[in-house]
């Protein structure tokens, strides 16, 4: 098992953002967590990424309990993440941004450079490597987020609404990138996503959150037929 959440809960000032949520991800799979706004997706994401410590429950990553570790320790353990609101190192070049990530497992600058260039290639950012990150467009910034996380050589990659704000063609490109990463590198992926087009195309397993609870789990095909999911989230108008 790559990652397992065992009845984790988190409250903010009495508001229970996540209640008793459990799920697991096997190695080499692409998983999605969906749900309406305020359902607790980002809270779960942040608990895995080490930003919040769960009030109760455990998170087990490759056989080791990781709840309550700091974000940098989570990354060292092998979980990479992106930010929903992108956070490029604006004053550094695209290549230097990714090299920061690469230094996690590389001691020397030439070594980090090599790893960074590979990551940039995978995201098709190679030609822009000398551009200052501040000058990138939003889709490129999203790619930079992914490249930077990849350079830390994660075993599990957490993607926080990485498709949001992309055009359909750009979304399809991103989907291809993640498929390739999953297929060739065996990377396990968890995406938190609003863009159903991407979820349907990419995810093998989907979990649906509503009011902080996991109300359904299954393949995308099973999920879209689930009456509870239809009622609370997808609604009538969803086309698949």
């Amino acid at each position: 098992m790559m990652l397992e959440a065992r009845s984790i809960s988190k409250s903010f000032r009495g508001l229970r953002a996540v209640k008793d949520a459990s799920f697991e991800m096997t190695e080499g799979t692409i998983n999605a967590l969906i749900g309406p706004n305020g359902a607790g997706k980002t809270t779960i994401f942040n608990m895995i990424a080490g930003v919040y410590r769960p009030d109760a429950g455990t998170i087990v990553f490759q056989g080791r309990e990781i709840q309550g570790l700091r974000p940098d320790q989570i990354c060292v353990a092998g979980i990479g993440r992106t930010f929903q609101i992108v956070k490029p190192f604006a004053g550094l070049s695209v290549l230097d941004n990714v090299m920061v990530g690469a230094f996690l497992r590389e001691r020397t600058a030439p070594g980090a450079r090599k790893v960074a260039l590979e990551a940039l290639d995978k995201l098709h950012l190679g030609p822009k490597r000398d551009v200052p990150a501040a000058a990138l467009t939003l889709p490129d910034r999203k790619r930079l987020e992914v490249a930077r996380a990849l350079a830390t050589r994660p075993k599990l990659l957490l993607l926080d609404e990485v498709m949001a704000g992309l055009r359909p063609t750009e979304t399809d490109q991103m989907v291809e990138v993640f498929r390739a990463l999953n297929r060739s590198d065996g990377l396990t992926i968890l995406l938190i996503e609003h863009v159903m087009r991407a979820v349907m195309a990419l995810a093998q397993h989907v979990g649906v959150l509503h009011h902080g609870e996991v109300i359904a789990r299954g393949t995308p095909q099973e999920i879209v037929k689930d009456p509870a999911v239809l009622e609370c989230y997808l609604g009538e108008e969803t086309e698949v």
Partner: protein
Amino acid sequence: MNRRAALALGLLLALLVAFPWMAGAYALSVATLILYFAYAGQAWNVMMGFAGQLSLGHSLYVGVGAYVAGGIFYHWGIGPWAGVWVAILLCTLLGLVIGFLAFRFGISGVYFALLTIAFAEFTRIGFDHIPALGGPGGLFLKVAQRDTIDLAHFRGPPIMYYYAILAFTVLAFVGCWKLLNSKVGYYWQAIREDEDAAQALGINVFRWKMLAMAISSGMTAIAGVFFAFYYNNLFPEQIFNISRSIEIILGPIIGGVGTLFGPILGAALLTLLSDGITEAFVAMGWDVPGIKQVFYGVVLLTVIMFLPNGVWPAIAKRLRL
């Protein structure tokens, strides 16, 4: 670094080495002052320019460094080559204490700056009450024999001090260049740009900030030791004064925060222009106290308005370095 930059650097270094033979006593003292500020500015730049932590209290490390090495020489006649290690050790420890207090509790930005000022201020008051180091009356080192070079006790003619501070400035430049282009430099810049993103990439932000603090304060201690043996008299009121901290940071700010050349260029511009203006006023028979401070203000305003990244980045862009 490309070949043109390397060539320019080599020429500059050759010029600086040959300088004492081309210049008079006054020019040599100005050049020594420039190099002193270039060195201290480089040390401050490690904290602010590289790691993004604004210290407004670097006079603390200058002062402690100066008093430690000066005191050891004054009381026991032991030269600075031993004292400098004690100074570095003590200043690094001080830096780590301040860093621990700030970074453990997430104090950053202006609050961190206030903390650094506070430490410099109460150390100043503390040194007023150490009779062994002269208290508010000051500590006076035996004036140097100006004609023979006594390296062991770091006593000698101005040219010796010039070469000493030149060596330290070169070492600091090379050291910072190495740091900036290695893992630690990348990590510091990542922390400067965005702490959350840095942490998400596996960077233990606290640890690397502490390292920046240690290196910067330790480097600044050397500036203090130099100061003590060059000027020979130390007063808490002067050496720990916040205006001393400001003087140190003006060079890098004018020259370009976070750049390797900024502190050197900024120190040269500021010292040359402010001394030039003071000289010009004296030559014209005007006695205007505080003209230097007014001048600093004007230069700072001008640079912030027209070259917010400092003078050096603009020049580097023109020269395509």
